[in-house]
């Protein structure tokens, strides 16, 4: 039994019939080759599959595509606007917040969630905010520095009245 779903990903509407057991992460990756979102542990522990679902960070390996029917999803491919990297992407680049890059899309959305709920976190709060995301390369130091820089950039933009 397949079920019709329509899910907006990065501003584009995808309509498809899916098996109810299909995970959101596979819907994202399979339908239009949006493979920036990764499957890591597949048990909601590593966070590599983190995306925004209606603006809120979720682990897409623990969400069925049918649960996201009618929702808006943002993946790493949709975070840059008008050819300009999001401040988080820019900061991860500047501060070397990645090595192999596998965890990076999830790290960026976990960081996005943190800054949405706490725009000026301490380093300890950054580490807490990222505790659902695992990186096997960096030792986390540069990831924390990246989030710190992104927060500073985004707060400066807000104070300037900019759009970020």
């Amino acid at each position, binding site marked *: 039994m397949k079920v019709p779903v329509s899910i907006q990903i990065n501003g584009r509407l995808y309509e498809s019939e899916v*098996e109810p*057991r299909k995970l959101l992460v596979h819907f994202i990756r399979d339908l239009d080759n949006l493979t920036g979102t990764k499957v890591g542990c597949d048990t909601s522990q590593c966070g590599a599959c983190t995306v925004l679902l209606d603006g809120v960070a979720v682990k897409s390996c623990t969400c069925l595509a049918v*649960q996201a029917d009618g929702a808006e999803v943002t993946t790493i491919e949709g975070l840059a606007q008008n050819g300009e990297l999001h401040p988080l992407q820019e900061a991860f680049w500047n501060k070397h917040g990645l090595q192999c890059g596998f965890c990076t899309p999830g790290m960026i959305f*976990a960081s996005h969630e943190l800054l949405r709920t706490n725009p000026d976190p301490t380093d300890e709060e950054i580490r807490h905010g990222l505790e659902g995301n695992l990186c096997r390369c960096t030792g986390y130091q540069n990831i924390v520095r990246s989030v710190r820089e992104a927060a500073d950039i985004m707060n400066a933009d807000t104070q300037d009245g900019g759009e970020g």
Partner: protein
Amino acid sequence: MFAPRFGYHRVSSVAEAGALLREHPGAKLLAGGHSLIPVLKLRLAEPPALIDIGRLAELKGISVEGEAVRIGALTTHAELAASADLEEHAPALAEAAGMIGDPAVRNRGTIGGNVAHADPASDLPTVLLALDASFEIVGADGERTVAAADFFQGMMATALGDDDLLTAVVLPARPPGQGQAYAKFAHPASRYAVIGVAATLEVNDGVCSAAAVAAGGLVPVPTRAPSVEQALVGEPAAGDAIATAASQIGTDLGDDLIGDLFASAEYRKAVAGVYVQQALATAAERIG
């Protein structure tokens, strides 16, 4: 990992969910899916159908009604942790909800799904037992209310029958002057509780007049700690008296302690008292 195949029904009312539960024996209710989807992926269950109640607005939100706090079954852990009403009336529940998993997990997981799953390493059942919560259930024969002490019956076993739907959790609002706390030893990977202890304390004229302590993660079903509670009442809610009372926890845990590769039963039993002491000391500090 792929779940086994199942049918899927999205419902728009509690009544519709009930009718489908009766129509599809063995069907499971789907809320946030953060307990159920992992179970399906590991093929620990193969329900013929999932009934998706996740969009029922009537099951969402927190309200304070007189001396009671009513929490809709679909309220997420993130909403519990950020609730000003819970911060005032049931702070230990907000505290524990904020320690579940990680932020993305808390955005999806719900209180109803959590307690219906009744994982022994879960946080909320322990707190709800200490706070004397009750559970509102709609079944084939109508509505009923079950106390926390009767709701949690065993490892992943509750008072919910096959046709039952949990609609809300109801808590007595914190009385003035009561301190509450939840202390947790989190598994470093899963963030589940290796040990979780919830405590409430009330003090009159410098001595403890009432205490509630519940422990989870240690035994197949969260348990109250009557030996600890009785040792506290009539004593000063501080220092040595708390340490002495906390040391009684072994008596209340019995012999059926959980042990695994991460923490043996002996280890859990030895360390449990530390977390009981921590929860009680924090609750005592918070008496306003």
